[in-house]
């Protein structure tokens, strides 16, 4: 095992961390979010410029040829900045599906546009009664004269309101929860019936209705393996993002404890509070380890092994993120209950990550059913 970064990786880490430090301070972030779309196209262009959007793509697709480690470095920095641009929706989910399910031609057609920042994607998959079942797809796709059309309703589509194209899962065969028979289609978003809204953590999402909507491309007629692999990689991404957020909450808490005075001394002098800050640190380190583990396993070809590792990481991150977030607020006192203070925003992001792609209970059950985590 080698935990040291290569020169190239260090370069990426430095450049994304610099971007966050320079452009993503608490006040700057607010300004970015005041854009009508809830995020900044100018920032997006800058991310493209720095090569962040194509970091994991082949060089032939305008990418950097990186892998999960490079992506993790970006995720952690984004977690520190609470980035609101649609990286997760476009690059991790959308492009991830195209890379895993698309033909060579399709990859060549779409990925360079993603890398250059011209094309925004979203993954329209979740449906109202799916809860945590990734195979729950009731929307249908039918073919007539070589054209596939899609009918059904998709929900909680991250950044679905601004996507140029949407990758949609729709059933081509089987029952609603079958793993087989799920197609993956690319649909042009122009003219789609979509209702966008903000989420609790300052991101964006949409409800999208398809009514005999034509697809512009078919990525796969048996898409579940690609969906599962992409979602696992996405979970690895949010685990790393959560580590960035937890690290920020922890350092803010420790700094605050050193400066906030009550009863004539810094509250950090109360040993009972020191121990709780130490527990936060332990939780943070455990999370960091599990995010690395998730990164290591994100591209594991054995789907069952991969899923077990990813679920384990999701459980650890979900629990630790909750504990660290709650403690960060409690140890700050009232100040952390306000919108003006950054800690509450990390707490909200942690909370939403815990519910994303299966909550802690769901992943714990998966690990238990798979025979345990070891």
């Amino acid at each position, binding site marked *: 095992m080698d935990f040291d970064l290569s020169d190239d990786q260090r370069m990426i880490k430095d450049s994304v961390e610099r971007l966050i430090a320079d452009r993503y301070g608490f006040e700057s972030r607010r300004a970015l979010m005041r854009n009508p779309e809830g995020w900044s196209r100018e920032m997006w262009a800058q991310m493209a410029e720095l090569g962040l959007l194509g970091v994991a793509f082949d060089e032939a697709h305008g990418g950097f040829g990186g892998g999960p480690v490079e992506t993790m470095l970006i995720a952690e920095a984004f977690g520190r900045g609470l980035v609101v641009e649609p990286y997760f929706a476009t690059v991790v989910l959308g492009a991830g599906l195209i890379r895993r399910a698309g033909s060579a031609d399709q990859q060549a057609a779409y990925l360079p546009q993603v890398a250059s920042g011209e094309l925004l994607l979203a993954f329209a998959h*979740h449906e*109202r*009664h799916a*809860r*945590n*079942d990734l195979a729950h797809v009731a929307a249908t796709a039918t073919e007539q004269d070589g054209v596939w059309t899609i009918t059904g309703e998709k*929900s*909680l589509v991250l950044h679905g309101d601004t996507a140029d194209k949407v990758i949609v899962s729709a059933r081509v065969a089987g029952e609603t*929860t079958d793993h087989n028979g799920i197609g993956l289609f690319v649909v042009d978003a122009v003219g789609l019936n979509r*209702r966008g*809204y*903000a*989420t*609790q*953590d300052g991101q964006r*999402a949409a*409800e999208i209705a398809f009514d005999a909507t034509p697809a512009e491309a078919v990525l796969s007629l048996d898409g579940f393996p690609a969906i599962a692999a992409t979602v696992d990689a996405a979970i690895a991404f949010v685990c790393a993002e959560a580590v960035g957020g937890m690290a920020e909450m922890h350092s803010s808490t420790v700094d605050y404890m050193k400066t906030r*005075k*009550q*009863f*004539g001394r810094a509250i950090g002098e*109360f040993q*009972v*509070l020191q121990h709780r800050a130490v527990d936060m640190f332990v939780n943070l380190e455990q999370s960091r380890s599990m995010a690395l583990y998730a990164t290591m396993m994100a591209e594991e070809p054995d789907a069952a092994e991969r899923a077990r590792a990813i679920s384990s990481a999701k459980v650890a991150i979900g629990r630790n993120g909750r504990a660290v977030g*709650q403690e960060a*607020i*409690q140890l700050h*006192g*009232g100040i*952390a*209950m*306000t*919108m*003006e203070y950054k800690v*509450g*925003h990390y*707490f*909200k992001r942690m*909370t*939403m990550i815990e*519910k*994303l792609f299966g*909550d802690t*209970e769901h992943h714990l*059950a998966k690990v238990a059913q798979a025979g345990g985590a070891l």
Partner: protein
Amino acid sequence: MDLSFTAEERAFRDEMRDFFHTAIPERIRRKLREGLHHSNDDQIETQRILNARGIAVPNWPVAWGGQDWSPVQIYMWQDEMQQACVPFPLAFNCSMVGPVIAEFATEEHKQRFLPRAANLDDWWCQGFSEPGAGSDLASLRTTAVRDGDEWVINGQKTWTTLGQYADWIFVLARTDMAAKKQEGISFLLVDMKTPGITVRPIQTIDGGHEVNEVWFDEVRVPAGNLVGQENKGWDYAKFLLGNERTGIARIGISKSRIKRIRELAAFERVGEGRLIDEPKFREKLASVEIDLKALEMTQMRVVAQERTLPRGKPNPMSSVLKIKGSELQQATTELMMDVIGPYVAPFFTEEELEGRNEPPIGPDDAATAAPMYFNWRKISIYGGSNEIQRNILAKAVLGF
């Protein structure tokens, strides 16, 4: 020892339950049930209904509209009200400033303020905390200086809950700069319309506006607005905080949250079944309920001690109620998040929720689950944080 309620007590409980369900409009109770905020008009309407029936301020002296109830009756009144999702009579009026005025203020003050406080003709808010004085309240720096027959107040209060609606604020201010910190504080009643007062909203992480900063810049109030004696304000503040000895567990509220969780979990589909039938979920719910049952029994024991304790004297056991009660209220918000699942994500302002024509996204109460989880983190911070409560218990009960 007889651990059951008497027939009279049970009859009283039924009477309260009936009244709350029939007299308080469903339109208001529904909001609390679904986790929405009730408006200030709802608060006023409810309190006036209660007051007309003589049960807005049962804890006050009978001469001022209180009831000659036993501690068990007070407990039942509160528990039934909370379970019926009735907005509780405004705490600043009924549990805080009212009892202080009734105990320490002049006859003239009592006549002037108490009936209006009971009927919510005056809306009071609490001006205790300051940016530099939270847990260490006695370090407060707002000053009141005597100038002829007026006090001149300067300083800043913060976290002033619902101060945006308030007609009056009760303020702790330093009146003797030389004295030891607890000894130079006075308790003043201030009309919010007095020139020099500025109220600025503080937005909380759930997006709501319930707290404010209140600034005092050369605010002149009549000398007669001092409660009791000059420099004795700390004693009155302790009386005020010690008064709410059993209510702080808010068990009825946790019960009503759990009832709602059960209702919604019965609708939520998981695969072929319902969430409420999932063994894991039921166990999680049951374990919170067991803790709540234990707390309810603990509360009854504290209620029973009430008879033997002097009024306004803090009972350290109330710290047990605060710690456990806040943890359980917070646990209910996490259970609700489990029920709602991924649909906790969409964010809507309350205005959007109330005036919307579009269908809600996800299950019922989806839009309030996360804001409530976020907002209720405050319960272990305010009213003496859980750390401060542990300090109290360590000292007063364990003798450290």
